[in-house]
């Protein structure tokens, strides 16, 4: 399962967290807080493995990433602590809403890139509106700590639309920031005993192998198909999760 999540994630340019938490919680009977903890470790593994490549190619804006990390780590720490006071049903509802938001933002992306054929390269750019970026990063970090995800769907549009960062750089920079952000909340979950290594080990190994495989396959597979597949999966998980909370099975 980790292999699948990692592979699809790498192909579509998202972390596997969005799939791992709901599948563990709904189908494998893992308690919500533990599912989030396990997902965080998987998110660290994918971010670390893939961002090493982006960083070496100079695609991530390291200075911008480090600046925004001041906010994401703070948000992640606060949210991870707060998550301890929130019951699992509320977390499940919040997770479902985030899944729906992610699905819609992927629909926009798939629609927007449907006619794009070649790689446009990176134009020169100047980063602007730092305060807005820091505010959004605090929020993204919060989502990460609360839901065990990377928070890319929050950071990437802000950097791209409001801070003047090209899309590919925004994606690579967001990916770079995720490792530190997820690690910060992972300490809290680990300290609380919510990261069970026997569950986390196969998932981490899977997403790591999957993300390497996905990165290899990426040039050969049409990104749009993967994106639509992922839209279907996230929408299905969101609806199922909401339904289970509704009928009280969660």
């Amino acid at each position: 399962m980790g292999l699948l999540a990692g592979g699809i994630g790498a192909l579509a340019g998202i972390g596997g967290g969005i799939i791992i938490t709901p599948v563990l919680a709904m189908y494998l009977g893992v308690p919500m807080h533990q599912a989030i903890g396990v997902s965080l470790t998987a998110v660290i593994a994918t971010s670390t493995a893939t961002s090493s490549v982006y960083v070496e190619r100079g695609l991530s804006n390291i200075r911008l990433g480090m600046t925004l990390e001041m906010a994401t780590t703070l948000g992640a720490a606060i949210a991870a602590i707060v998550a301890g006071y929130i019951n699992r049903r509320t977390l499940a509802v919040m997770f479902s809403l985030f899944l729906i938001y992610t699905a819609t933002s992927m629909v926009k992306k798939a629609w927007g890139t449907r006619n794009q054929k070649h790689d446009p390269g990176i134009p020169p750019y100047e980063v602007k509106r730092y305060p807005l970026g820091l505010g959004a990063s605090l929020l993204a970090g919060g989502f990460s700590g609360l839901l065990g995800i990377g928070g890319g769907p929050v950071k990437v549009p802000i950097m791209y639309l409001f801070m003047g960062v090209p899309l590919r750089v925004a994606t690579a920079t967001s990916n770079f920031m995720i490792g530190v952000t997820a690690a910060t909340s992972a300490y809290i979950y680990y300290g609380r005993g919510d990261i069970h290594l026997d569950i986390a080990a196969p998932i981490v190994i899977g997403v790591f192998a999957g993300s390497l495989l996905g990165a290899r396959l990426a040039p050969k597979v049409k990104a749009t198909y993967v994106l639509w597949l992922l839209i279907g999966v996230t929408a299905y998980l969101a609806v199922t999760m909401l339904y289970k909370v509704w009928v009280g099975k969660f």
Partner: protein
Amino acid sequence: MTTAQEHREEGRILGLTLRLGSYGSVALIVMGTLLGFVHTGIGDTVLRAGFLLLMFTPALRIIVAGIVYLREKDYRYALVSLVVLSIVTATSVLAMMKILPQLEK
């Protein structure tokens, strides 16, 4: 202002840190899992070491970046690295002290 050359240097060393950390930790996790099938005690220790390395690689990356910025005399970003590192360290200390509330199961 920094040159493109320095940016590449920075990317190379950070990329290497991330690569060593991720491959190293996953190798330990694989080994720990395999050892767990034969000998539980050693398996658990190796597995735990793997996860600790995985969770502390991002912190290590911040320290390396801070050192790079100090050497470049880029004090502004050295300070940024220090702030991020402080938040991360404070959180991990807080987590280890086990003063946080226990969860509703």
